[in-house]
């Protein structure tokens, strides 16, 4: 009865293959990290500034601060 022959395992280039595959994953993940920061932090901050200044009333803000007593030059 002939013994079952297993396929010859891969014996060369193991490190190169590992690095090639993982570097592709690393690039994709790092682009993902950058995209996450851009959309969740940077774009949110730009939107927060735009929303703040859209209906901003300088005199109203100033009057609130003046009543709170923070200014020395105007009481």
């Amino acid at each position, binding site marked *: 009865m002939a013994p079952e022959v297993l396929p010859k395992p891969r014996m060369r280039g193991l490190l190169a293959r590992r690095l090639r595959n993982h570097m592709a994953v*690393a690039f994709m993940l790092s682009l993902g990290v*950058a995209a996450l920061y851009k959309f969740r932090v940077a774009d949110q901050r730009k939107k927060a500034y735009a929303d703040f200044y859209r209906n901003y009333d300088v005199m109203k803000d100033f009057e609130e601060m003046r009543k709170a007593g923070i200014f020395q030059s105007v009481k």
Partner: protein
Amino acid sequence: MAHAAQVGLQDATSPIMEELIIFHDHALMIIFLICFLVLYALFLTLTTKLTNTSISDAQEMETVWTILPAIILVLIALPSLRILYMTDEVNDPSFTIKSIGHQWYWTYEYTDYGGLIFNSYMLPPLFLEPGDLRLLDVDNRVVLPVEAPVRMMITSQDVLHSWAVPTLGLKTDAIPGRLNQTTFTATRPGVYYGQCSEICGANHSFMPIVLELIPLKIFEMGPVFTL
């Protein structure tokens, strides 16, 4: 001013500072990208038993890791230069104030419409009122208008100082024998703080800057300078 344990930039009070914050976000995004890549590569190196002690001739990889950093540097340089030139734009300031650094206080001169000159010393701890900020508050604040371009001429009478207000994105060296100019347009009223930013002796940390920004029409009425 910064709140306790703050690590990020202060909220912007001028359009230039808003641009600087956006640029900082852009540069930090690139930093996170590179750091993640490097940490991942380090993790790969530390979690394998596979080795290759005869690596040579990796021309493709060498090309990639030369071209890619060059592209990243260009992506950082272009917005940086844009903001640099934006800060030098001629915007016809409506008001000029001189700021003169001394050891260890600032002198401010309002000479456009009169001859107001005063010194601004840090409030010593014994002179603080409840609510005053230790090491930040001063006896005489710089009162300036909001939504009007202001020009600051900065110099020093003795050694190097630097006039800095982080929320406006300003930092200009005060150099004896030289007049440096910086301009800004504030967008919000309030009280804003800065500190001397060039080592100038024993009390370098004790010569702060305090700006009181008030609406232009209130400023034009001539607020009372508490001198």
